[in-house]
């Protein structure tokens, strides 16, 4: 048959709103794939959870509700134990490094959690930092402070003495405005994107935790793709990972610059001594994770060690 006759049409579901970075990378990937396969593949994108919500994504792709989906692994703790290790407090400096480390880790361990899907790329958010209404420069400033954060950051905030408040992002702007929470703990692009700079005048750079994402494809769909399309997609796995990490990092530094300029937001950086003091509080979290991983029959020590080595390797480049 001719290439034209075999035009493949794929549905790509994503859960956050269209302007966010997981959707930006989705549109970029779509464009590149359509171009590089000379139009043999057509991709329909569904942002904003219109086809699959965050927690439905993995099973939705396995069951064929969408051909491709983007998952945030931190939303399903327990399910992606190996890859979720990247969100331990292991000093991943930026999204690009984190994305490539995550991909390396996946390639090395080939976790069982992904047996039923084909991985098209992986990437991570930029590291989480503290955005607050009052300045946070010491651990004592954090004591008892109510910060909005996803469940994944609960242990970290607890270790620092702050209170993690879990609430949907949709409730957060109002909760901040009215003072129900006093700040949030997440990557900094939200300062500009969700206009939190209007309310939170202080940023404390902790660069602690990142959240891993994966783009996955239904196995049956993958098996039925023509060989040259598979080749194009395979060749884009690492490239897309690096591109997304770079985009994320740039987006965050733009957001910080904008917040400083438009809303006079002050950025607080911790001295190396202080940073060491803050990090010391977090050590038990990694130890705990290693213990749980071992209970599940996974080489917890080795995974943590690998991540640290991979970070060094990827930052050296």
């Amino acid at each position, binding site marked *: 048959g001719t290439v034209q006759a075999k035009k493949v049409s794929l549905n790509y579901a994503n859960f956050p709103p269209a302007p966010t970075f997981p959707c930006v990378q989705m549109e970029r990937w779509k464009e590149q794939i359509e171009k590089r396969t000379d139009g043999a593949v057509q991709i*329909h994108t569904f942002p904003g959870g*219109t086809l699959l*919500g965050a927690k439905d994504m993995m099973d939705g792709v396995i069951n064929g*509700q969408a051909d491709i989906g983007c998952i945030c692994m931190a939303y399903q703790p327990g399910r992606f134990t190996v890859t979720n290790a990247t969100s331990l407090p292991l000093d991943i400096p930026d999204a690009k490094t984190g994305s490539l480390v995550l991909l390396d880790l996946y390639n090395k361990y080939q976790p069982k959690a992904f047996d039923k899907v084909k991985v098209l790329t992986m990437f991570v958010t930029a590291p989480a930092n503290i955005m607050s209404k009052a300045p946070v420069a010491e651990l004592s400033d954090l004591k008892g402070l109510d910060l909005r954060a996803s469940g994944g950051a609960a242990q970290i905030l607890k270790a620092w003495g702050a209170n993690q408040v879990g609430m949907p992002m*949709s*409730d957060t702007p109002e909760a901040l405005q009215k003072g129900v929470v006093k700040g949030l703990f997440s990557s900094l692009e939200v300062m*500009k994107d969700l206009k939190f700079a209007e309310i939170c005048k202080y940023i404390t750079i902790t660069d602690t935790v990142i959240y891993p994402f994966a783009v996955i494809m239904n196995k049956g769909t993958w098996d039925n793709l023509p060989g040259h399309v598979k080749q194009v997609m395979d060749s884009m796995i690492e490239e897309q990972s690096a591109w997304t990490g770079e985009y994320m990092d740039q987006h965050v530094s733009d957001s910080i610059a904008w917040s400083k300029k438009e809303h006079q937001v002050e950025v607080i950086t911790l001295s190396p001594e202080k940073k060491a003091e803050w990090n010391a509080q977090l050590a038990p979290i990694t130890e705990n994770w290693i213990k749980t991983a071992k209970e599940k029959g996974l080489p917890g020590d080795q995974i943590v060690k690998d991540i640290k080595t991979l970070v060094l390797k990827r930052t050296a480049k």
Partner: protein
Amino acid sequence: MSLTLVGILGIAILLLLLFVFGMPVSFAMALVGFGGFSYILNLNAGVNMVSQEIWSVFSKYGLTVIPLFVFMGQIAFYSGVNERLYKAAYKWVGHIRGGIAMATIMACAAFAAICGSNTATAATMTTVAFPQMSNFRYKPMLSCGSIACGSTLGVVIPPSVVLIIIGLSTEQSIARLFYGGIGAGLLLCLLMLLTVYVVCRLNPEWGPAGPRANFSERIKSLSGATEMLILFFLIMTGLYAGYFTPSEAGGAGAFFAVVISLVQRTLSWENFKKATMDTLRVSCMVIMLIAGAMILGKFLTITRIPFNMASWVADLNVPDPVILAVIFGMYAIGGAIMDALALLLITIPIFFPVAAQMGCDPIWFAVLITVVTTLGAVTPPVGATTYVVAGMAKGSTLNEVFKGVTFFLPAYLICIVLLMVFPWIITFLPGLL
């Protein structure tokens, strides 16, 4: 068969199931959504989609305001708070034709200031207002129409789940959007009051005027309104002083309602049980309506009709005002066949850049779209608010509710036109920020 055709056929089957077969609305939406989704993809995808939607709608944190606010309304009902409130209102406005309907619309607007969802507003306000309006021999058509339309103010007047969704998906300041909603909400409320006035001028027996109470009777009646005023005051204060979020307001409201009725000793154990059971049934009915609408929405999403329509409009080569009119028309039609939030999530990313290119103020555009989509919440076949009111108002038929709603449609249209001609109604308050 093209996907668009499948979508249109699906809607046709939905109409058939609803209006000819008389199938319960939530079940019909779920069945059509399931059938269509399975037809386009496969059976396995269809059943998994249904089970996922049921689980995720049922366990959605944001929807817990529904049982909690409904419970607040039921407690107020069974302890006689609503009755005393309406008796007081009757002394003040009962002598005006349709006066109680107007008071109800204003009560909806007040409730909208503490509740961010249409359906929760409708479910609560039907409990509060409908039995009382029947007591004063108001026609179900008028009372249900007033409650259904008044409830749509729930998402126009802040807090508002729709404005939050728009804010998050367009990266606009939610505070500004909320300020923008105030002007539009008040205008819409005013036009609805005017509608009641005109309708009751033409049909005096729909909202019969009662005897005029003298001044001392009125002052005396006020004591009947105190419980509700205290309840409202507590929630407003908690909300605006930052003690709780709008999602928590329902729980706080229910708690305060129970406390007030305990202090007043107006609630028997028997009535407390009744209030609880009624709450469970009403919330289940409402949440299943939402689940049905979501399942249907997944089907329409996979047909890509909303995407295609939006891209078609965005590419139209006509003057800007025409594009705007077509966009609003599309939302009005789309809102009729699809859940408003699902529709917004799909179309906003396409329309927002178009509006920006035309030089529209983003806040103005977002608020105006909210008003247009609230229209969708009351129009058949997918009009959650109307179904909630009709399902709860015993002694009224859905037919009557839809008829009642029809009288208010001009109010929406006039509101939209006024907002287009005088954009400052929306943009004035956000400009002060």
